[in-house]
Structures are given as C-alpha cells and as structure tokens.
C-alpha cells in the first residue's frame, strides 16, 4: 500500500525491534530478575541454562541486564535522535522557507557544525558539560543536528520548487495551506527513514563515548557500558562482551534495515 515491501530481512528486523520494544516497556516479562543483584561467588559463569548469557564479574545475570538495559540504550538513542531531528527540522524549515539572508547564515552555521565530526563535537561538548548520560544524549543530539537540518533544507527547497507546489500556487492555494498540504508532509516523511537509521547510529556513538571514558554509566545496565566493562575480560569471559555487543548490533542493524526500507519506499 505504501509500497513498503519488507522482505525477509525486513521481517526479521521487525521481529527484533518488537522484542526490543517488549524489553523496553515490560522487561520483567522477559527477565523477572533484578539486573543489579550481585552474587560475587557466581562471577564469570559462562552461558548455561541457569544464566542464558552467563554472568558478569559480580555474578549479575547478563540476560537480565541486557533485557533491562534496553530501556536505557534505546532511550538514549531515541532522545539523542529526538533532539537532532527536532532542532534540525526547525532549522531546516527556517532555512528552506525563510528569506535568503536567513538561509545564507544558517547555511554557514550548518557548514561549521558539519565540519566537526560527530565524535569531535561530542568531545567538545562533554569537555564543557562533563560526562554522563545527559551529556552523551545532548552531545550526540547536537552533533546530528546539521545533518538533519541540511537534509530537510534541501528537501524543502526541492519541494518548494516542485511542479506540484507550483501547480497549487497556480490553483490559488494560499502559502500556509501549501505548507500544511504539501511541503511539511513530503519533507518530513524521508526524515522518518533518517531518524530510524539515526537511532541505531546514536546507540553506537554513545557506546563509543563509553569506550573513551566519557559516557560511563556503570553499573546501570546500558549496553554500551556493559560492552565496555566486559571488554576488559574479553580473553577470559567472552560472553560479557559478545552478548551486549550482539544486542547493540542487532537493534542498530534492525533499525538500519528498516530505515533503509522506509527510504526506498518513499521513491
């Protein structure tokens, strides 16, 4: 109907995301235990029937932690992308539809923001704000603004110059209506695909900040933090890295696949 054909990879992705959604909304359904409960005596247990993903250095059940960590990780991705898209969309509309001077100056600002790679920008931001989950979210959100803003601006410009907007003007439709009917829906739709991709990327970025010692959240079961904590034991307890790492790759991958599908469906 939308022309959205999922294919098997799309269906698998949807299934993964549904599972992640359950983990976010009702983690107890999947893992009733306490993600923070330590049992030092049970540390470093490999995966088994009792501990599906094994246990970590403090004897916490990794499966429980991965399930309960979904809310934090996906939440961070969502929040960062929300900031990026929200501010980016506002700026993009302003640049795309506003007067020429505004477009020009915003364009320069985007250029500046764009010239700084995501992690560099996040570093700067964190060195000013100090590290922590809020800083990570803001940093990644901020770093993604110019991308979204530029994309929307180009899109809005294209639509404003399109045949159907011209035709609507000739058909004596007022500018406000043209915006509501044509420009906003057509330009925001592709952003949905970018946002889906963006959430996955944001989760990965945040985990990279954790590696650099700037996003540490331990002992909260955020996936990036778990992955980092486990990396120290990679040689002796591989499951401590592989399980949260897999969670990141699966969810980010699923979001990427679906985001690309959405992107393809649009044209």
């Amino acid at each position, binding site marked *: 109907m939308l022309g959205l054909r999922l294919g098997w990879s799309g269906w698998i992705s949807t299934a993964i995301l549904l599972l992640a959604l359950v983990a976010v909304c009702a983690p107890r359904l999947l893992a009733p235990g306490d993600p923070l409960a330590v049992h030092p005596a049970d540390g470093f247990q490999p995966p088994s029937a009792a501990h599906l993903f094994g246990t970590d250095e403090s004897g916490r059940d990794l499966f429980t932690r991965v399930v309960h960590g979904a809310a934090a990780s996906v939440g961070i991705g969502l929040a960062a992308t929300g900031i990026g898209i929200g501010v980016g969309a506002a700026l993009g509309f302003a640049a795309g539809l506003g007067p020429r001077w505004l477009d020009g100056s915003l364009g*320069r600002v985007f*250029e500046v923001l764009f010239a*700084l*790679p995501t992690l560099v920008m996040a570093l700067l931001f964190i060195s000013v*704000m100090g590290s922590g989950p809020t800083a990570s979210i803001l940093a990644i959100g901020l770093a993604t603004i110019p991308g979204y803003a530029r994309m929307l601006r180009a899109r809005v410009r294209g639509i404003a110059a399109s045949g159907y907007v011209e035709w609507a003007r000739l058909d004596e439709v007022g500018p406000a209506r043209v915006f509501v009917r044509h420009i906003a829906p057509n330009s925001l739709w592709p952003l949905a695909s970018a946002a889906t991709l963006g959430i996955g990327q944001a989760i990965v970025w945040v985990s*990279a900040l954790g590696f650099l010692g700037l996003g540490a959240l331990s002992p909260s079961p955020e996936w990036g933090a778990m992955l980092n904590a486990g990396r120290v034991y990679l040689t002796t307890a591989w499951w401590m890295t592989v399980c949260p790492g897999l969670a990141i790759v699966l969810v980010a991958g699923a979001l990427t696949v679906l985001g690309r599908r959405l992107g393809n469906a649009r044209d």
Partner: protein
Amino acid sequence: MRARGIARAFATRIGAALLVVWLTATVVFFALRLSGDPLEAIMGGPGSQAGAEATDRAREAYGLDRPLVVQYLAQLWNTATLQFGDSYSRKQPVAELLAANLPPTLVIATLALLLAWVLVVLGALVVAVAGRGRVGRAIRSALAGLETVASVAPQFFVGAVLILVFASGLGLLPATSGSSPTGLVLPVVTLAVPIAGYLAHVLQGSLVEADDAPFAVTARSRGASEARVLFSHTLRHAALPALALSGWAYGSLLSGAVVVEALFARQGIGRMLLEAATVRDVPVVIGAVVVIALLYVAIMLLSDLLEHLVDPRLRRRGVIPA
C-alpha cells in the same frame, strides 16, 4: 575558462573555511573558558596542590589575568597565524604538536578510505559477476547483511576482536603500530569497516539504479560482459553519490580516529584532542578543532574536484557547487 571556474570555487570554499575557522575558534574558546578554569591544566592537572603564589604566577605567565576579550583576541590572532599559542599542559607550541600529530592521522584515515573503496568495489564486482541467479541472490543477501553489520558494529569492539585474533591469537600482526608498516593494518581495517559498510550500501543502491539505465542495457546489447558493464559504465555513475559522500566519510573517519588511536595506541590528532579536551587545554583544543575543520573543507574541495574528474557533465558547466 575551466580554470577560472575552479578558481572561483576555490575562493568560495576558502571564504567558507575562514568563516568556519573563526566561528569554531570563537565557540570553542568561550565554551571552554566559561565552563572551567584552564589554570588546572597548567598546574599539572586537576587536584594540583600548588600553592597560591605558583598559581598566580602561572595565571600571569599565560595571560589569564587579562580581560576575557583581550584573551579572546590574542587567541584569535594566534589562530589566524596558525600558531595557536602554547599548550597549557604540555608547555609546547601547539603548532609543533599539530605538526607531529596530524600526519599519522592523515595516513590512517586516507588508507582507511582507500581500503573502504577497494572493498566496496570488490563487493560490487562479485555481485555483478555472480549475476541474478540463485547463487547471485544468495551472495547479494549475504553482502547486504555484512554491510548492515559493518555499518553498526562499534569500532572499539571490532578493533578489540581484531587484536585478539590477529595479535594475541595468531600473532600475525602487531597490536600497536610502532614504526613498522604492518602495524598500520589493524587500525586501518578497523577504521575502514563502518565506512565500507556505509559506502557499499550507497553504491549498491545506485548500482541497481544504473544497472537498469538504458545505457547499461545498450552496452549489454553490444555484447559487453557484466564486468565490462560494471567498470566502464555503471560503476562510474554509481560512484558519484558515494564519492560525494566520501568527504563526509572522511569526517567520520576522524571521529573513528579518536577511538582507533586510543585503542591501538597510535599517535594522532584524535588522541591529542581527546587528551586536551579532558584537561581543558584550550589552545590545543582550538588548534585541533580548527585543523580538523580546515581538513574537512579541503577534503570537500578534493571530493568536488574528483567528482569533476569522474563526471564530465560538471566539467562542462564549469561551476563547482559551493
């Protein structure tokens, strides 16, 4: 005539670059200065037990007792002359630090971009030659999956696994890059993985499009083989969007450099920035950020020029979009 077009484009780019430099220097200066006291860095890092007298002396020596505006103008002058002043923590001219740290980063970033392109083109060739039959389809799905995983796998994790397998496990390659060129292999591969995943996706997408284009069908109707159609027709068309993205990709390689340089203990601008930012070494941060911004501008210019090389249609128009 063509030269003039390019010269004008250069001028536009350089104008933009100056603006970028000024804005970044300003933002970084005020952000760092207003959020904390750089004296900490000067006095040997946080928690320094230096006496009041020593602190005052240093404040004077680094001009931190002057009004903020004067300090800003001084920093701006330093930036404009690309000297950037002296590092607070390293007590060394920033320009020297940059000169030492930039080349190693450029080396791995450039090699990584090249490697990513080689991987991506090889992938495209495999897909093209495998054809559209059952085997081809299986190969294509496998590559598509690989692409997705590559573009979302956290770099520090990929790097750690590579070290585990190739350095500690097989002992084939060094984990850190001392002076031997083999030390470049692991960091470059780690850096190239996500970019390759991303470029491959873009390239595959436009290849499918170019593959259906009338000129490709025509080429087949002239008896050209699939490899020939790929290399002399579709690849060039499909490469255009990926090439345009390579400028952006270079930026994200610099992001990756921060991670990879820390992981593989490589000297470079990413690691330098990471260190400077954590101790609030304002001159170094501004220097590094400005150089990264300039690098970005230069890379964008280069990718424009490359695009012109590949696409004669742009050459004829003689204008590089600013």
